[in-house]
């Protein structure tokens, strides 16, 4: 299914300023892999070598008005889901 992915204050150097992508995937991992195919260099920055999300970033799953911190990349996606990639808040 088609999923919308948004970048918030992250990886704009890799996306050349583009903030919204549409990807295909039934699970978070397959959606991410599609995204990584569209954005060269993202895999190395967004994920650690073992495949988990880099600890400096959060991957959120927005579903029916709820915001879920996505730690399980095998989680199934549903129609209308949105993924958002942001830096981890560290103060100001």
């Amino acid at each position, binding site marked *: 299914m088609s999923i919308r992915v948004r970048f918030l*204050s992250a990886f*704009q150097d890799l996306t050349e300023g583009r903030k919204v992508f549409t990807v295909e995937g039934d699970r978070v991992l397959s959606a991410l892999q599609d995204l990584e195919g569209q954005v060269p260099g993202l895999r190395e920055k967004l994920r650690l070598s073992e495949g988990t999300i*880099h600890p400096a970033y959060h991957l959120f799953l927005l579903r029916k008005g709820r915001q879920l911190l996505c730690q399980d990349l095998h989680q199934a996606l549903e129609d209308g889901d949105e993924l958002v990639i942001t830096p981890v808040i560290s103060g100001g």
Partner: protein
Amino acid sequence: MNGYHGKVLRVDLSNRRSFEEDLDPDFVKKYVGGVGFGVRWLYDRLKKGKDPFSPEAPLIWATGPLASIRFLGSTGISITLKSPLTGLIADTDMRGRMGGALKGCGYDALLIEGRSERPVYLRVTEGSCQILSGEHLWGMDTRQTQQALLLDPENKNSLVASIGVAGERLVKYANIHSELQFFAGRTGAGALMGSKNLKALVLKGNKKAPVADMKKVRELVKTISSKIETDGTCDTLSRYGTWNTTAPAHLNGILPTKNFQTTSFSEIGQIDGDALLETIYAGKRTCPGCPIGCRRVVKGEIPYPFSTEFAGPQYETVAAMGPLLLNGNPYVIGKANELCNLYGIDTISAGVAIAFAMECFDRGVLSERDIGFPLRWGDGEGILKMIERISLREGLGDLLAEGVRSASERIGNGSSEWAIHVKGLEVPMHDPRGKKGMGLAYATAFKGADHESSMHDEAYQRENALPELGFTHPMSRKQFEGKAALVKSLQDYWGVMSDVVSICKFPMIPPRPLKPRLLVELLNAVTGWHLSMEDFLTVGERIFNVARLFNVREGVSRKDDLLPLRFEEPLKEGGSAGEAYPRRELEKLLDEYYTLRGWSTEGIPTSETLKKLGLEDLEVST
């Protein structure tokens, strides 16, 4: 003593004299430096109940032991005072080079007491301290003051720290500026300086404190710097500065909007990190010895011109002059930042004070006649006017210059409900309903609502965030459970010890590479000590307890460890919809927190706790 010159410069402005004192090595090992020195000296020197503006109230500038090595902001300085805003002990930390410059003059700390009859400034060099007329500087803004002082050939190659007009007029949240870039921002240190008729401090010196093991220091600096540059943990901080926080704060529902009434801001896309890069961004700057470069340079043209000379707004300022006031114009934010810098006031307290006034107007508690114009939400011109009026203490600005606690007491009509402060210090730009640890930190920080006293919950939502301090299990930012232990540990480590060693807090936040073990190793390499992690954390706990005792002596107890009533109301929308901070949950956290701290149920350190921390000489008195 490695890491120290072993000298304190004391200045008595009342009697226009200065003299040196030796630092006691045992004292040094117990309090290490920075806020550690400041807290203990303030406790010992200022008796209970003294007016923060009384001549005997000291303004304490203290360096850390790393100040001579220029690494990750270690050349900054900590300033400790009795805050005129809160009436309690406070510290405010200024990055930049003033700490390195004071060390360069041959001093580890500078204690300023008394009050000059006429405006003066201090010139400190290697082996000399002069109290000079500052009459010609009085009335100048921070930029004019710096320019005037640096034109004097005697001050060539010096560093200047000064107050603006707001400090002269005793605005309770006036700050101190250095190099137009660095600020001792919160709690009104600039007002205390103004009350002493001290306009500026000029430092010039090149002395270096001895270092025990420079080879080891170089190795550690190389290791940490290399990780910062390559491990990806500081990439967004380097690209966006702290603007990297704005969009995620909005997504998470913790971005204070409309005076903390909500956390959803319809114009977020106009002021988030990417938007500011496309509008006001003009470059970046870095602190001495830091590979990150998180400071922004900004520029604006007519109708809101602002110069690249000043430090650009950080996240706190963007939020306080933006969503908090329903302002989505980045150029107004840039201009507001510049005005605050020129006049010398804290942007967080100023933003919260203006938000308070806007809500008063919105609710009909203050009229157009009271304010002088209709101060509506999102009114950019109104925001800029209010900054000027606060700084110059004109009209309603005179009232707001006292802080929102005092202003609400005088305005009445239920306005205390929307005066958002803790212990008199305006709440920073992190709504605690969406991050429960931050709420407890606000309630228990010794200077009031302080977002730099304990780390932010978001960093602890993953496994193994900070194993060295025992935090291995993920904790939701929204949960209350576990937050008492988290806040207590992080107050001692991050909140206090970063300002004791005097180093930037950003590289210490997980998953960034300045881990506790490396910081202890660095301190030991500089000083030649053999502190264990436990010893290191005990220093932090000791200092936190001395600060609490100062406040207890001023009458603080559990009754004061509160959050604003507004946070008991659930948020209605956004990433923290449904989240609240009920009083009963805060009380439960306080019970657990006091137990962990070894305090009584009333929040008073027990004699057993003081003994454990080597503070037997201090009295538990209320």
